[in-house]
């Protein structure tokens, strides 16, 4: 999209000094060389992507640019002039704004207060607040950056919080905007909106540096891309002249398969049978409404669905940490769904291993070492006991061997789990569960927040397990992943299985309709091309979908109504992109647009507790 006008931009900017030029930047933390002799030149008025795996040194480089760290050596030139950036204040003065991956916002302050913090005009707040209100209004109109200035930040969703961060930078008159992994926390629709904002900013002549490890974003949004690997800048190329495969190769340092290779499944008899499974959560909402499915040995059953339609609950009940009613049979033997024999450990004894969706919360204990993490759930295994104690030496040796086999880097079992990158953490969890040779493996979002190199490895491991004749239940919100791994696909909507399909006989449109709860495709006039459906028809189809039985309608954040001033803002948010890895171009965006036209509750059944309401807390009349 933006590449169309690069030749013209080239002509214009050749004479102009680069917005940012780094020369020979090096930075070491103790023995670790985070940045090695990095040189880069960013043209003004472009979107420059910096891509690299986690730990490649991208964030360190940007922290140097923002004055958080001081480089050991090297020069920084801003608009052609050498600039010292000893602290954030200096970076702000040089016109650099930074949007951090973890927002630096004061949660119980209003948007306005956050914006002016540190950039107040005088000792009294009122004039600054009034000025900021005016500036904000103007910025909102210019760049689609709508946020209610009086909303308290903690009541905003992440997408809006990120806009506040961008507004903060623009309020400080930043010409150069650095965004560090900006889409990691966003839904596809929010990410889309973000890229429209960035495009608007670029048109206004701002320079944008986009740090990410997502190839698709780089390909879609940037003009130029620099690749980092192990602290070094390995290449800088025009985005239009490269391909995702090339970029992936430069990032990882070897050829990467973006598509998993697998042979057709040779399924045996069913290993896991689920009949009429029901689950009611703590709030009394029925999350599973009679799920029946079976998984045969040697096949991967993929569960597709928009997040929050009961997939997590299914994993929790199967994994033994939520109670349910119904029948679950493993190799024909019924297992307890309630009581003392319904917990993670009993499930593991039954042969069900579980790679949970949220590895930080459910998969690992972050401050504990890798070897400790690798024994959890199996710590009563007689094989590792030594009298009344655990045989730690044996566990460590075993852990080291597993880490070697699963290519966990660094392969040091004494390192705390939090010190590993996302991909390596996931490999630790996988190694723990797979190496115990389970009959059934439950996998939730196996590659969420995982590097591209690690994704390939993780997918291969899952397929290897399948080829050994195990039954695998895969839950993923990434349709790409569902398609590339599954042998059968079941679609969940509102706690029910809407239908099962074989990947080769279906397409994303059909699955998209199922994910939106529409089974009667003939009635919805869709069959051939949902693209042909008018907005009205889609809405009609959506309305006829089973009524979600959430007790209360999900209240949008209080700011929502005020912040999205145009009535069509919601609809415009719709065309979402799948986030992670690049694949063949999507024939249609119908999946996301459909879910957007649905009653809100289907897309995001409110699982999370309502935003904390404590109006007094920042009450100025305190």
């Amino acid at each position, binding site marked *: 999209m933006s590449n169309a006008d690069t030749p013209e931009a080239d002509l214009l900017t050749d004479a102009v000094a680069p917005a940012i030029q780094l020369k020979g930047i090096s930075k070491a933390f103790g023995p670790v060389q985070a940045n090695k002799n990095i040189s880069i030149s960013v043209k003004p008025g472009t979107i420059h992507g910096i891509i690299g795996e986690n730990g490649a040194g991208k964030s360190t480089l940007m922290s140097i640019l*923002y004055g958080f760290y001081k480089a050991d050596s090297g020069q920084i030139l801003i608009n052609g002039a050498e600039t010292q950036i000893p602290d954030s*204040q200096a970076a702000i003065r040089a016109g650099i704004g930074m949007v951090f991956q973890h927002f630096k916002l*004061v949660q119980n302050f209003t948007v306005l*207060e956050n914006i002016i*913090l*540190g950039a107040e005009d005088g000792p009294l*707040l009122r004039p600054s607040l009034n000025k900021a209100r005016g500036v904000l209004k103007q910025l909102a109109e210019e760049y689609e950056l709508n946020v209610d200035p009086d909303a308290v930040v903690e009541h905003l969703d992440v997408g809006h919080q990120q806009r506040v961060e961008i507004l903060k930078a623009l309020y400080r008159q930043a010409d150069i905007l650095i965004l560090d992994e900006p889409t990691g926390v966003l839904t596809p629709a929010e990410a889309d909106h973000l890229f429209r904002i960035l495009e608007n900013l670029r048109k206004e002549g701002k320079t944008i540096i986009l740090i990410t490890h997502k190839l698709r974003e780089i390909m879609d949004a940037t003009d130029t891309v620099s690749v980092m690997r192990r602290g070094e800048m390995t290449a800088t190329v025009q985005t239009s002249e490269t391909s995702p495969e090339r970029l992936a190769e430069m990032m990882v340092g070897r050829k990467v398969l973006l598509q998993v290779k697998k042979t057709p499944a040779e399924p045996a008899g069913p290993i896991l049978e689920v009949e009429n499974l029901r689950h009611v959560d703590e709030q009394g909402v029925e999350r599973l409404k009679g799920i029946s499915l079976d998984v045969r040995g040697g096949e991967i059953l993929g569960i597709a669905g928009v997040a929050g339609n009961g997939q997590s609950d299914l994993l929790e009940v199967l994994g033994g940490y939520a109670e349910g009613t119904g029948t679950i049979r493993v190799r024909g033997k019924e297992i307890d769904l309630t009581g003392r024999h319904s917990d993670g450990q009993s499930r593991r004894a039954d042969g069900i291993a579980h790679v949970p969706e949220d590895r930080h919360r459910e998969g690992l204990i972050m401050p504990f070492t890798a070897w400790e993490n690798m024994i959890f759930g199996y710590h009563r295994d007689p094989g590792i006991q030594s009298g009344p104690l655990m045989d730690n030496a044996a566990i460590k040796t075993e852990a080291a061997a597993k880490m070697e086999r699963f290519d966990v880097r660094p392969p040091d079992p004494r390192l705390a789990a939090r010190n590993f990158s996302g991909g390596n953490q996931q490999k630790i969890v996988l190694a723990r569960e797979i190496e115990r040779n389970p009959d059934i493996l439950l996998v939730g979002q196996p590659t969420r927040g995982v590097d591209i190199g690690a994704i390939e490895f993780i997918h291969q491991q899952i397929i290897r397990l399948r080829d050994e004749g195990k039954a695998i239940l895969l839950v993923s919100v990434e349709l790409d992943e569902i398609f590339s791994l599954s042998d059968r696909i079941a679609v969940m909507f509102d706690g029910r299985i809407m239908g099962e399909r074989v990947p080769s006989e279906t397409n994303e449109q059909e699955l998209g309709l199922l994910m939106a709860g529409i089974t009667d495709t003939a009635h919805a006039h869709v069959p051939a091309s949902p693209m042909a459906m008018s907005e009205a028809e889609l809405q009609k189809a959506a309305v006829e979908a089973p009524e979600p039985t959430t007790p209360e309608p999900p209240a949008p954040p209080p700011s929502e109504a005020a912040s999205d001033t145009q009535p069509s803002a919601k609809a415009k948010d719709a065309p979402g992109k799948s986030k992670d890895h690049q694949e063949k171009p999507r024939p249609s965006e119908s999946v996301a647009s459909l879910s957007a036209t649905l009653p809100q509750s289907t897309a995001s059944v409110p699982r999370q507790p309502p935003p904390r309401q404590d109006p007094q807390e920042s009450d100025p009349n*305190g």
Partner: protein
Amino acid sequence: MDFLTTLQVLDSAIRLATPLLLACLAGLFSERAGILDIGLEGKMLAAAFFSAATASITGDVWLGLGAGIVASMALSLVHGLASITFRGNQLISGVAINFLAAGLTVLIAQAWFSQGGRTPSLIGTGRFEPLTLPGAEMLTGIPLVGPIYSELISGHSILVYVAFLMVPLTWWLLFRTRFGLRLRAVGEAPEAVDTAGVSVVGVRYVAVCICGILCGLAGAYLATALQAGFVKDMTAGRGFIALAALIFAKWRPWHALYACLLFGLLQAVALRYQNIDLGAFVVPVQFMDALPYILTVVILAGFVGKAIPPRAGGQPYVKES
């Protein structure tokens, strides 16, 4: 209970609430900036001793007040050094300050005055005298308004008025000024302040210094206005009651005033009515004396509902990206 007695109890409540209020506001500044301060008690005690000692030696209560503030500030800076610069544990630093003050005041008092750990009684200009507000005597004759003005509002020492004026001033500073915005931000999300190019350490030190000044006022008031001289452990847990009031008030200045008045009233009632005869049984004096402390425990046990402290409270700020 007749009108005059009520007035006298309320009058006493105001006097007793004053040191609590000053200490509570001191804690408010510190904790809003993310520095937990359990050492309010120790700072008050040190200020009480040094103000009384200086006032008794020089005979000038204002010098005494200055000495009290300096002593309290010194301890505040120790706390700041430990918890801001060296990123130590703020609770431990506070506890250490309390021990230090409790021991040191008595030791020095004994060394200087040899009166068993107390200072000589302050007389004349060595003490803050009650101020009679203009018109207080003229209005005495007017029913209701007269006694309220002359008994309740007039006739306190200057520090009482300072303490009560500190409430709107604190509110204004916190919620209407740049300094207040930064102070509150630094207690909630120091990383936001840091990335905005403002020194976290600087803001926190200013907060700790304000805390020291207010604790100094509180301590000096105890020794040179409420009483006439320093006695061992004269703060009697007021620093902790102030902390309780702070939580009760959920770190808000006006609510801090109400909370401190409530505690002051309880103390006043306990002083006035030593034994309350309820007919069937007599509430013993010990119970009345313990009442403010019992209430403190009840309040801290969560009776007040959910009090959300400043989010970065107690955590030293370590820069990371």
